[in-house]
């Protein structure tokens, strides 16, 4: 075990897998000479050279398409977007090619591809730079979507993603890059896709979250404990595939659920989780499933308004009170 920051855990996963498999390369804007816009890829150009760590100009659609093509004939690309916001420029490639080539070809082709970037809100970067893109992508059959909250999961899941034979979208977070945690050194350590983790045990309510919101949920749970409310926190880690068994097991114990996520409430992964709970555990529920999300408006720049729009611990607590019929 070594204590690593989240960004270092992501880097370690890439380095180990690139050392292990010559077919893996990394491409993106400022990943090489600049050492990464958020320093995730620091040192990797020196280590692997410009054949395998490739600086691309601002051409998201181009280098996504190129990586799909390279994957189609046997390479295993890792594509870094400066942030997930800019993947919107490559959305057609991801939706129409990465996700569909396997089925369209009758199963002849596989696209072993990893797309990764920071996701969600940062700080006051405005409406065009604050998207939670997991909701768009988890909608698409053919893609897998991961959103780890902890450094060890970041490493283990990214390694699984690189070894997976499907397009896997890996959601990091600018606000998590500095978070530290114990990370296994074993190069064979992986975290399988589609397995949630219980990061806090509790009995009164299940809070289901992922990525940065797991940390906000932990904050909320600490507050709730002071009121005598015991919250269990399920960190989904993997949004597609989704570990419904762990979610249902938790709700079967607590009988109440709040899904906490960044991103808008209309549709989205939170709505999907709520649907699964009501479908699979209807008789266990003592209250409707509620969601604590980003408010249903584009992200404003003003700092106070931004904090008001982004889900905070207080919004989770408020929803927990509501499912417990306490006000």
């Amino acid at each position, binding site marked *: 075990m070594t204590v690593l920051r989240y960004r270092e855990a992501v880097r370690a996963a890439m380095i180990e897998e690139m050392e292990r498999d010559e077919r893996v390369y990394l491409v993106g*804007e*400022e990943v090489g*000479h*600049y050492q990464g*816009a958020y320093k995730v890829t620091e040192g990797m150009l020196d280590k692997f050279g410009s054949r395998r760590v490739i*600086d691309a*100009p*601002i*051409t998201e*659609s*181009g280098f996504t398409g190129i990586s799909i093509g390279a994957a189609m004939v046997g390479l295993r690309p890792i594509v870094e977007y400066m942030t997930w*916001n*800019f993947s*919107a*420029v490559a959305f057609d490639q991801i939706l129409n090619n990465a996700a569909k080539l396997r089925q369209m070809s009758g199963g002849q082709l596989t696209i072993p591809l990893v797309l990764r970037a920071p996701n969600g809100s940062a*700080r*006051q*970067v*405005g*409406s*065009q*730079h604050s998207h939670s893109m997991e909701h768009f992508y988890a909608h698409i059959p053919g893609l897998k979507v991961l959103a780890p909250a902890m450094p060890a999961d970041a490493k283990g899941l990214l390694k699984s993603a690189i070894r997976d034979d499907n397009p896997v979208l890996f959601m990091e977070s600018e606000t998590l890059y500095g978070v530290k945690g114990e990370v296994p050194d074993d190069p064979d350590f992986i975290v399988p896709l589609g397995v949630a983790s219980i990061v806090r045990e509790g009995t009164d309510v299940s809070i289901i979250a992922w990525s940065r919101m797991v940390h906000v949920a932990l904050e909320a749970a600490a507050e709730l404990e002071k009121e005598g409310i015991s919250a269990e926190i399920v960190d989904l880690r993997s949004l597609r595939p989704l570990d419904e068994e762990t979610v249902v097991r938790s709700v079967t114990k607590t009988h109440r659920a709040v899904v906490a996520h960044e991103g808008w409430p209309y549709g989205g992964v939170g709505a999907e989780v709520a649907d699964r709970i009501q479908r699979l555990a209807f008789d266990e529920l003592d209250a409707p499933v509620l969601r604590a999300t980003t*408010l*249903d*408006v*584009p992200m*404003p*720049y*003003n*700092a*106070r*308004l931004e904090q*008001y*729009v982004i889900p905070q611990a207080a919004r989770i607590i408020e929803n927990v009170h509501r499912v417990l019929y306490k006000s």
Partner: protein
Amino acid sequence: MSLTITPTAALATVWNAVLPPEISAMTTLTNGDDLHLSLYRKMFQIRRFEEEAARAYAQSKIGGFLHLYIGQEPIAVGASAALRPDDYVMTTYRDHGLALARGMTPRAAMAELYGKVTGCSKGLGGSMHFFDKEHNMLGGYGIVGGHIPIAVGTAFASKYRGEDRVSMVFFGEGAVSIGDFHEGMSLAALWKLPIVFVCENNEYAMGTPLSRTLSVEDVSLKALAYGMERDRFNSEHVLQVRDRLGEAIARARTHSEPTLVEIRTYRFRGHSMSDPGKYRTKEELEERKKKDVLLRSRIELEEKGHKAALEAIDKEVEDEIADAVRFAEESPEPGPEVLEPTTYAGPFAR
């Protein structure tokens, strides 16, 4: 490259000959020192505005991204001098200069950076998203290249309505690789739309030098394949920028034909405030700062005996910027009630 540059300078005399004299926003001024002084004043205002913005950013009074235009001022100012007030302009996130050049008040601009409701976008947009409909400054945009087709759309609307307005869109050389640039160019040429594409080539896209951005350094060559007129020059003087862009504007206004203009320039600050700028040497930066076009205008005007006028400008601009900072500090913040009405026109669609 064996391709020759289109002789736009020669064409210019032809275009200028057919121009009605009232087309320039600056026709009340002569082409002499009065005009130069007024353009210098504008460049200086932008410079001082941004220096104060950088200071406020360091004090955490401004958040998010802050991309400074310092070094590139003659482009927005020269362009605005060549445009009419009813012409449309659009640019990237590096938008303070163009907004001020078009006539936005330093108050509205500074208040926006402070996230105040008195800001040009009510404190909702921030540095990257300055909008000023009154001055036909139709925005600063955050996604590289995404605004280029939108600007072409404003030119389409002008032609559709039979108006003689011109649209001008600014972007960096980093945007030239993006599909939207090419789609916008292609349609503007095909449909003969009154627009000027201005590539502000400052040699870096964030930390990426030109050599790792484009396979051919000459951006203006992209126009050839679209059958579009082109021009290419170094930003050396604000009046030169005005004149050269004036040719392209005239072509758009009188013949409804687009032009791609590449202007070589240099930014003196980092890409944004968080950029340590390790990708270029101190010597390179110092060398380029010696060619500061703002300074060149100042020296030239001083030499022509306008010392007193320049000192008066210094004082006025200092007062103006200090007033803008005070205004921004004292203005109220927007409340949550602004969010829904600014999201939809009419009732909120739930």
